[in-house]
């Protein structure tokens, strides 16, 4: 489904991603892990087109996305939950959700109920400004917002940051459900091993802008963890 090859990216003078290769299969749930600052977020932003890649290819279902504008991606079924939530602070919860509607293939005019089923708080807070929500509520809104476009690929950057335990569980279930039942491809950046193990099928470990290990989640060994995740 997603094939990234030889991706390079730099901020001004500093190169962050170095000839990065990554492959994600259709319908899989892949966890990307790595220490702070190794370039996980940068990678996702490159996939989303929010950062320009210096060189390399990013193919989703065969199309090379490098050079295509960011707004093209949601129309092709890629949903994104950014790190730090990036809620539109002055739009109401409802408006935050509505923003994505035009990307849907079925041109639905109403926010699908599923979002409210998954995150009931959102229904209660429909008319509150997104920015007023608590951190966790915003995180839920961010996931809900990405689901509105009914993505084929869902990209989540640390979706559990600041979320209360029972909802973390719930989010895990949602991801699993979407992945298993609707065959949605999921890319998940996650720091919490427990969650990653529970939800992910595949893992990719990053170090200094490269993917240094990839395998099925069962094979994520203590030694790998010590090697790539410990400080």
């Amino acid at each position: 489904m997603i094939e990234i090859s030889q991706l390079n990216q730099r901020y001004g003078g500093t190169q962050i991603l170095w000839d990065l290769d990554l492959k994600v299969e259709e319908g899989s749930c892949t966890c990307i892990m790595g220490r702070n600052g190794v370039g996980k977020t940068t990678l996702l932003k490159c996939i989303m087109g929010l950062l320009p890649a210096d060189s390399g290819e990013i193919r989703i279902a065969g199309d090379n996305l490098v050079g295509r504008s960011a707004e093209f991606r949601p129309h092709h079924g890629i949903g994104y939950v950014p790190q730090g939530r990036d809620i539109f602070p002055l739009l109401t919860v409802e408006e935050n959700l509505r923003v994505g509607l035009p990307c849907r293939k079925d041109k639905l005019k109403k926010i699908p109920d599923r979002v409210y089923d998954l995150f009931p708080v959102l229904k209660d807070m429909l008319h509150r400004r997104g920015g007023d929500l608590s951190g966790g509520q915003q995180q839920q809104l961010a996931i809900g917002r990405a689901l509105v476009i009914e993505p084929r690929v869902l990209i989540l950057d640390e979706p559990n940051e600041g979320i209360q335990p029972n909802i973390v569980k719930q989010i895990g279930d949602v991801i699993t459900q979407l992945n298993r039942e609707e065959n949605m491809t999921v890319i998940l950046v996650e720091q919490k091993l427990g969650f990653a193990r529970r939800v992910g099928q595949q893992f990719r470990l990053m170090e200094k802008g490269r993917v240094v290990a990839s395998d099925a989640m069962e094979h994520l060994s203590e030694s790998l963890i010590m090697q790539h995740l410990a400080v």
Partner: protein
Amino acid sequence: MCCLGSTANAESGQTAATESLLARLPSANLRETATLVGELEQSGGDRMLPLFQIMLDGRLYSRKSDDALVAVTQPPTGDWVLTDVFTGASLGTATRREVSKVRVNNRLRVQLREAIARIQLNAEDAGARLAAVDTLFGDLNDSSAALLSERRDLETDDKVKGAIEEALALYRLRSSSEPAVQVAALNVLAESLNTEVRYAVEQLAAADSAAALPVRNAARKALTRIDSNLEFYGFLEQLFFGLSLGSVLLLAAIGLAITFGVMGVINMAHGEMIMLGAYTTYVIQLLMPDHIGLSLWIAIPAAFLVSGLVGVIIERGVIRFLKGRPLETLLATFGISLILQQAVRTIFSPLNRQVASPEWMSGSLEINAALSITYNRLYILLFALLVFALLQLILKKTSLGLNVRAVSQNRDMAKAMGIRTEWVDAMTFGLGSGVAGVAGVALSQLTNVGPNLGQSYIIDSFMVVVFGGVGNLLGTLVGGFTLGVANKFLEPMTGAVLANILILVFIILFIQKRPKGLFPQKGRAAND
């Protein structure tokens, strides 16, 4: 040929005396003309009406070849068209040099107007009769008073009759020394709103007035009554002035409320967008000089397109490269505003251009003698509200409104949600600029159409948007009207200059109380 004029006169049945008076007109100087007009009214009576009217309009000329009096119509191009003064029959054409004008000055115009009024007192049309009474109102003498009372007995129209009563009452009040007559007149006049009446009554009521005691008392009572009426209407008038000024501020600011308020672009070229709209109106009028009214209607969409297009070009060409550097848009748009001003100066000259007002935009709606509302301001007030409502509709009901807010709050995330940010930027900036252009059409009806037009509104516009609260269209509406009304209520007390200063000081102090304007953006995000 030489006798055509006089033949026509003979046909219309002028007496010899009138004929000879008419023959003296072309060569008379202004003083002599005045005497001639008086004599013509005496001898010619009603039949002189067309002559007087044409003279009043400044269309009476004499043909140099035969000294015949002709009425002239000046088409925009080509020779002048001559017609017979009394019959309207065509007398061919002539160049400017072949005719010479029968000169009329102010004093003569007054005289003509009164003469026409005396004739028109018996006109078919009630409106014409009313106008005639109004013309004669304060200047009655014995004979015209007699004319009026004659008319009163015949009059069927209540309004005209009322006006005649009032005019006669004022005449009696002034001319009679009989206390009873005066008191009776005062009773009639107590309901009058005419300032001339008030002045006459005030003189009687004054402490040093020579009037008899009962008259003086009646006058005082009448004066109180008149004053309280006037005060009420004065208040309404001021309110209207305020709303009208507010509507101008609203129109000027509303485009900015979008480009600056919603998009966050400090658009120093906003004023020039208004200016472009005004110039568009001018150009459209040039293209269709005979349809002033229609041209105005066409100018509205045209101005929207012109300014909107220029807005889109500015956005695509400059502002789009300044994303994330909002303050630098100030610099770039300032440069653009200089360029646009100079461009207009080069293309249209630095002089003001003349934009005519259609008939229906001129004059005023007379509600009563104390309160009349000028049509142009009334229409502009309504127009401003309409534009506002339309804009609200667009921003609330179309996806553009939601998208532009999303883009301005978080551009990257908006992209990630599939919003075509570039397109939204261009459209929104185009919309804001286009609306400014539409404002220019309205302003062309009130003020100069010149290269500096934009400059004179830019500061006020920013002030209104900020006062109302950035990002809130309703705030702009309320802000505009508040400042307009406040200004107009201050002005009589302080004079125009000081009123302006006080309003500014008020805004400065107000912002201390509400640092985010009248309708602030609320919430956690807005607080940081």
